[in-house]
């Protein structure tokens, strides 16, 4: 009987001592998350309108898929000035994450993968402290309009990839070829665009 008494006292005591903290836990502030990437393509020719590509994934790796929007079509034979802005919209107000990439410029690079049915090319417009591109700023030049066939085959995608710790010195990487870039993908977003 003594054992039972001793044990029940011990268990009761431990329950008392250790279960007093009934405060609800705090939610985690996810400071590092990027929820939104906005790419503004501003034409050099100010007669035509800008095109805005945006992907927004507010629940991160939750079940909701990213909301991808393309504001309009690109025009043929034009030059566009592109700039990328990254936001963390889980915080209120939203935090601009672009600065973090700029601060760690050596460890980041954007790549633009253009579908074979899209007659366009890109060129980096910025560089890190070692003279290699970062890719937050770039130019996009279009030539001929997309064909109906290419649109049908889904070959008019443009994919923006942000690599963390890429090998910038590898062959072709500084020119924007992702093949040898390695590193780890931080952002990958595909937009279906049309050149008309």
């Amino acid at each position, binding site marked *: 009987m003594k*054992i*039972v008494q*001793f*044990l029940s006292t*011990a*268990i009761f005591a*431990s*329950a008392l001592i*250790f*279960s007093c903290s009934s405060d*609800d*836990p*705090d*939610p*985690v*502030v*996810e*400071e*590092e998350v*990027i*929820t*939104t*990437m906005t790419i503004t393509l501003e034409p050099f020719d100010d007669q035509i309108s800008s095109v805005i590509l945006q*992907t*927004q*994934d*507010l*629940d*991160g*790796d*939750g*079940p*909701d*898929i*990213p909301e991808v929007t393309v504001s309009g079509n690109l025009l043929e034979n034009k030059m566009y000035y592109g700039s990328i802005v990254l936001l963390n919209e*889980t915080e*209120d107000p939203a935090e601009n994450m672009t600065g*973090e990439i700029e*601060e*760690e410029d050596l*460890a980041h690079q954007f790549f633009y*993968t253009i*579908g*074979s049915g899209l007659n366009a090319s890109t060129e980096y417009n910025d560089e890190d402290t070692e003279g290699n591109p970062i890719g937050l700023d770039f130019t996009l030049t279009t030539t001929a309009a997309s064909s109906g066939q290419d649109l049908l085959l889904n*070959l008019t*995608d443009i*994919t923006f*990839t942000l690599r*963390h*710790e890429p090998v910038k010195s590898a062959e072709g990487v500084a020119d924007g070829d*992702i*093949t040898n870039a*390695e590193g*780890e*993908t*931080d*952002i*990958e*977003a*595909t937009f279906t665009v049309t050149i008309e």
Partner: protein
Amino acid sequence: MRNYALLVLLLSSITTLSQNCDNTLTGKVTDIHDGQMLIGVTLTIANTEQSVQTGLDGIFTFSNLCDDTYYIQISHPYCLTKGFKVRVFEDTNKSFKLEHHIEELNQITIEGKAYSNKSKTVLESTLNKEELERFSTGTLGNALNSLSGVSSLNTGNGVVKPIINGLHSSRIVIMNNGVRMEDQRWGSEHAPNIDINSAGNLTLIKGAAALQYSGDATGGIIIVEAPRIAVKDTLFGKTSISGISNGRGVSINSRITKSNLNGWYTSIQGSLKRTGDTEAPNYLLSNTGVSERNASIKIGFNRFDYGIEAYYSIFKNQLGILRASHLGGAGDQVRGIASPIPLIINDFSYDIDAPRQEVTHQLGRIIGYKELNRRGKLSFQYDYQLNNRLEYDIRRGDDRNKASTDLELITHTVQANFETNKSNTHHIKTGIIGRYQKNYPDPGTGIRRLIPDYTKYDLGGYAMLDTNISESLIIELGGRFDYTHMNVYKFYRTSFWESRNYDILLPEIVVEEVGAQILTQPKLNYYNSSATLGATYSFKDNYKLFFNYSLASRAPNPSELFSEGLHHSASRIELGDLRFNSEVGHKFALTLRNNNKNFSFSIQPYINTINDFILIEPVDVRQTIRGNFQVWEYRQTNAQLIGVDVDASYPINKKLKLNHQFSLVKGYDRSRNQPLINMPPANFKNEIVYKNSAYNNLRISLQSAYVFRQNEFPNNNFEVYIPETETSEIVDFSTPPNAYHLLNFNSSIDFKTSNKTALTVGLEISNLLNTSYRNYLSRLRLYADDLGRNFLLTIKLNY
């Protein structure tokens, strides 16, 4: 002590005249405590060279004695040497009683064995001190791997999780010096936090038969015990230093033990290990360094009928995880798998960078026991564990040096156990246990909690009985009941909460909505019953047949219940379900064992049927801003594992011996009729050992280990679109790697350096042929080969 006794005998011996000198003196030597016969007792007549030993029946005989008074010295390894005066007149019969000191302190030994049997009807596999010392630079998992039926689930060379008969993690209970390890063992990349050097003996029980430890070990129980200490005046210790070629590291381990005849004893042990990047045969495995610092201390007081002991250990390690295995989404995985060499290979370094784990496990225990006259032994135990786990990922910005996972798990346990040890025919064990546990995931990591805040209460009780029906038949039966209550605070993403329909099914557990998250407070209860029933039958001298049925019930672990998000180290999204109930396993195990000097073997077939088995499997591919990730969801099903373990040993002559092992296990999901994932492939181990005790205990062994390809596996591959090539690629992480064969060499030799010190030098070469191979059960097999050749040179000094 023995010398002193002899001296007294010599000084006090009296020479007398003798007439009749063909008398015999016979008798038996028994234990003063329980009247048991003592075998192997040496009796020496003072002033003569005459000396005899007691036989298996405890009886001795001196012949050709005169009618006289003799002084006889009686000694036994586990008893204090004593002198007796005997008057011999014609044939005389005289019996002696010795105080048979349990050679070991602490938990009294049963049946004169230093380490008692944990279950009577399951064949236990054990590793003793000498065997364990061969693994002193490895992990607990490496040591266990040498036993048949055990494989390991690896994440590189540092994280080695034992798999027993196909089951691992939460399905295996590890008892460390009488304390059930609570070290977040649910994760497949969470290795047991035990220093192999703190162990003196390791016992493996395949299945849940040892109910005194737990009722939820559907896979098995591993019992780690510290070296035993004899009750005598002594001071001894050992220090070993090892050089490790693969990883260019060093390991130091030292232990010192002091014990006194009055019952007090102390043992202190410490070990250090540091290695850098390891190597596969053809390349360096970057960021696979290990740093480990451990210490333990044991202080106790032991009397035959009561004792108390305090034990404390600290385990601290830092483990680098292969840099090339840290990847983003499915596109990265395609690149990693397709590449014949790891994507990232840097120069050799001792740095342990992200991704890495840092774990500190502290364990304290106080146990006291009292021998109750004529009834048995009663013991009380309190233990405390503090596990702190930090995982570092590759991060950005201000969070760069911040851990992404920071968990603190505190466990308090109290228990009372009682066992009878007075009867030779039956033996009862019973006890009650209470446990309190709290998990605190630090929100300061800036990453959503993988394991939520919770407090857990366990209350359990067990009773076991074994009885000798006849000389050759032992029956064992037992039952256990455990109640578990969990009080959890969990943040769910609102999108997930609604996609699961929890908002309709479980609205009552919602505490509040915070932004895009919902704070919930689930309160979960589990009522688990477990039981065992078995028999052991001995026949034809050396044969034994064991039969055991065990019923085990395991409550789902926090990971199975609450996972909800990206598991970065696995590159996949994992989803649990808080509505899971306990899984219930039924294991039938049969063992035929022949323990013959000329040829010994054991064959152990088993069948383990587990209802509501919790498994994780891929269900979908999810698109996120970071790319595509495969979604793995936990599900309950009925599973069945069937297998056999075979051991055989054949001495060719006195010095040469062959050892063989074979293990096979097949696991199936019976509801879906498909194989279970991560089942160990069949494997053979064959070893030839040369041992010459006449030549400095020289021991040389060559082992061949052949691991078959796993041909039964679920196909979980999926397709992902690669924009660069505008093609869809298969992410093949299901296909098992090919079969492989490894040769391992081991040798050691002892040198007597002085009266009290001995030096042992050991050389081990693992993967002798530097074979490139990949292990199906290694999580890094997709990205890199396993370890290449390793030379290990160990110098050990016993003093």
